[in-house]
């Protein structure tokens, strides 16, 4: 990131290569729309480039990029809300959601992924950023613009809700 701030194009490509996959998965988990996630991924990295002077080399580059992705998603939601509310896609277009390791033992990957999709977006975000992307709760709070405690609470509630949903599915 420091090399990129210094004007090194290949450093940007390395950053993109390292983070584009996970950030796309994160955006897909929020939008539930593969094509939209691709658009927002590109938009996220446009913003990364435009705001590269705001990156503080003493802090986590990952949290900084995820915060930009989160803000891009919120901006896109505002634009979409003006156009039409909650664009629903046919089920076959929905991308697979990344599954937290803690939840893998609870049920099949597919079941966990579907249960994850039913969680409220703010809880899902906190859960995925901590359990899948490995961000600390402090970093999750910074990404989402909430306190560390609120980030922890959202993630714990999401995990509880997920367990409950999977237990209900298992009982059927």
């Amino acid at each position: 990131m420091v090399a990129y701030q210094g004007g090194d194009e290949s450093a940007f490509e390395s950053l993109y290569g390292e983070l584009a996959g996970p950030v796309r998965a994160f955006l897909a988990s929020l939008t539930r729309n593969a094509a939209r996630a691709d658009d927002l991924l590109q938009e996220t990295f446009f913003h990364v480039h435009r705001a590269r002077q705001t990156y503080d080399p003493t802090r986590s580059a990952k949290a900084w990029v995820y915060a930009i992705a989160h803000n891009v998603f919120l901006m896109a939601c505002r634009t979409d809300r003006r156009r039409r509310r909650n664009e629903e896609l046919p089920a076959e277009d929905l991308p697979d959601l990344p599954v937290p390791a803690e939840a893998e033992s609870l049920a099949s990957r597919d079941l966990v992924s579907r249960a994850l999709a039913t969680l409220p977006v703010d809880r899902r975000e906190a859960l995925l950023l901590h359990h899948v992307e490995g961000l600390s709760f402090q970093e999750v709070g910074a990404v989402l613009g909430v306190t560390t405690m609120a980030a922890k609470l959202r993630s714990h509630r999401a995990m509880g809700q997920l367990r409950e949903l999977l237990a209900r599915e298992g009982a059927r």
Partner: protein
Amino acid sequence: MSPTPLPPALRAAVASDLRPVRPLASPARRALALLAWAAVAAALVLALRGLRSDAAELGLLLTWGVVLAEVAAGAGLVALALAEAVPARGPGRGAALLALGGAAALFVALAAVTRRASRGMEVDDPLLSFGPSCAGLQGFIGLTAFAVAALLVLRAAPMRARLAGLLAGAGTGFLAEGVYHLDCPITHLSHVLVWHGSAILLLALLGFGFGLALEARERARMERRRAGTAARKGGEG
């Protein structure tokens, strides 16, 4: 998982602007610019309009102490605005609203303490006399601070700009109130809370509007890029 290819439009945008950038200083350090502004503004107010007529009655603490407290609160809010403008650095909505509430409570408390210490200049109708001129002058002083704060916010390319703008606007409102405390000798609470308070409120609203305009501009840019990408994909197809 296959690696996500770098889109050509993004590659072109990056390649077209690869000038080296220096990381921004911390929000608190950048907010120091507003302290320099406050020192210059206070010197100008003293030179052009002189010190308030009841300064002797108020004493050093309630004249300069109040100025320092309000300027510090204003600069603190601007620092929060600058943090909010940087991804993953913002205080969050809850903490920002708490800070705004704290600054407002400080303003009311200092107005009450000042009133207890000095009757100030007595006017016929404290609610109406000199009110618009005080609000106008304080607002004008605040606008010059807002111009500095807005430039600092813009440098960070904020995405959640409405909260950053609100904090910057309110912060410059408190900075202006601090500086104007040196001039206005009317201590009646209805005058201070209504007219000086409205100048702060107007600057906060100006900041919020500035933030909304920045967000609208960002959304329009996003839409243009999205339309361009869709057109390119259509052309390739």
